[in-house]
């Protein structure tokens, strides 16, 4: 699903150069559930941005679902983000003026799907994350955990190759966090591939494999022994 080889990322700011990633090699197979951990400044966020096609690697190759991303331009990037990637953010990143259904419709809108089909698929996705009775609410009318479920529905709705979650439980209480992780586990069991950045070890325990970054390199990559949940 993901094949990353010798990826480097160097930020240039005038004369200053800062290397955030050093020769990263990383593979994710279909139906994996990977957590990425590391202190701030370890390079894990940069890595997620490159995975998410929000940023280009300085060098190296990145193949996502058979597509060589290394040669993609900005226009290809937006299409790949739309079709292949589902984002779940720490801050939910829902548009407050739209209803949750309209929020879930957004990726399909950019994919050029007709309004009627969009609406049906959005409602289906919301039912799937347990919000079938809230479809006309706006994000401000529901709880944080519910908002993150809307974001998951939105990430799923274009049937992406992979879901990228950036600290998805960072803004949630522990009860909601567990709920969200259970949803991720359920999706993963259905065959959805997930890569999740977190700094909470107990949240990482819900995943199948843990990758640890430090100073721009991967220092640890191991399967989780005693998974939580399930």
């Amino acid at each position, binding site marked *: 699903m993901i094949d990353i080889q010798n990826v480097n990322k160097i930020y240039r700011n005038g004369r200053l150069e800062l290397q955030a990633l050093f020769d990263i090699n990383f593979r994710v197979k279909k139906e994996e559930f990977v957590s990425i951990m590391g202190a701030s400044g370890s390079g894990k966020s940069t890595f997620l941005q490159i995975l998410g096609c929000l940023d280009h690697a300085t060098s190296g190759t990145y193949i996502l679902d058979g597509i060589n991303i290394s040669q993609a331009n900005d226009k290809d990037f937006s299409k790949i983000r739309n*079709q292949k990637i589902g984002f779940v953010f720490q801050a939910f990143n829902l548009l407050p003026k739209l209803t949750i259904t309209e929020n879930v419709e957004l990726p399909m809108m950019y994919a*050029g799907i007709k309004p009627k089909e969009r609406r049906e698929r959005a409602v289906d996705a919301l039912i799937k994350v347990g919000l079938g009775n809230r479809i006309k609410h706006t994000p401000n009318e529901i709880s944080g955990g519910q908002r993150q479920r809307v974001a998951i529905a939105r990430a799923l709705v274009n049937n992406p190759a992979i879901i990228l979650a950036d600290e998805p439980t960072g803004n949630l209480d522990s009860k909601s966090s567990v709920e969200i992780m259970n949803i991720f586990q359920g999706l993963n069991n259905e065959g959805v591939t997930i890569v999740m950045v977190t700094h909470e070890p107990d949240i990482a325990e819900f995943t199948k494999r843990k990758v640890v970054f430090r100073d721009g390199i991967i220092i640890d990559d191991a399967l989780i022994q005693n998974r939580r949940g399930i």
Partner: protein
Amino acid sequence: MNIRETVKMALKQLLGNKGRTFLTMLGMFIGIGSVIAILALGTGFQDFFKDKFINLGLGVFSIEAKEDTIEYLITPEDVQVIRNLEEIRTAIRGTSEECSIRDAKGKEFDTWITGVEDGYMTLIKPITLRAGRNISVRDQEAGSQVLLIADIIGKAYFGNIPYEDMIGNNIEIVIEKQPVSFQVIGIYKTESDVNQSQKELEKYYGLKEYITPFKALNNIIGAGEDVSMIAGLIKDGYDQTSVATRIGQILNRRHHLKDGYSIMSVAQIVDMVDKIMSVLTMFVSALASISLIVGGVGIMNIMLVTVKERTREIGIRKALGASNKLILRQFVIEALLITVIAGFIGMIIGYIGAITIGANFGIQAKFSSGMVVFSTVTSVSIGLIFGVYPAYQAARLDPIEALRAD
């Protein structure tokens, strides 16, 4: 995502912030509204003015000597020469004299009496008689002291009696301090309202609406045959301005003068007014256009603020797959919607404004499809000119940076 959906989304955005949208549009309302009103009133005034002069008669011209000396005065022979020109229907001498009219109670009102040769009341300034007859050739030759007066003056002088009963009566006019009695032979129609009180009607004594044969007035004031002013009528189908100019040249040559006469033709006046009004309308429109530019800058300003405020939204949309092109389109369409809606409302404001103002001055505002085209083209251009830059700013935002924004 097609244009229709983008428009729908932009509309929703604008309606979500009605107060700001209205204020943003205000400059455009005023700009488009005032340009439309000025153009409509300008055209209306031009037409109104033209109508008035065309009623007076296209083809009518008048020539006035610039000096009152013997070298300049126009002789009967001059008039004959002009009258013999191919392009000329008629040319006549005329003279005007200050006088006063003495009413039944002996009260005097200052006014002007006009003496004209045959042809004036039939060709140059045709009249419609309410009663009586026109001045005849025999009156002209004999220099009879007969008088044509306007209906309104008849009513003022004789009171509210039938016009027929006024005919044959005498009116006393004081010319050069000598009272002279004129016999009323005809009452002609004017557009003035004759149904007014006696007191009101007295105001009309001052009008230049007393016409007598040229010879009669000339005899009374003891003037010679030469005059300082003549009037005439050019035949249809000739270029009136150039014929009038030619007459001037003929007079100058006959009098060995360089530029001794001022010539006025109705066509010339209409042309002149047309030109003045066009320039004036353009000038005022240009001024009003400044408010359009100011309005456009206002729109750009608000759009830039909007982009700033919605940075995070832009980041989210980009993360979800919106291309730069789609973001650009979304913001350009928002700007276009603002200007096009504002332009449309401005057009309505201009329309109502022009009709209201026009009604107060008795001018009928004239609208044309060109004005609709103008408003539409201007609105769209302003939307594009001032909308593209903010939209470009939005489109080029880095999604990572944008997602970090508050």
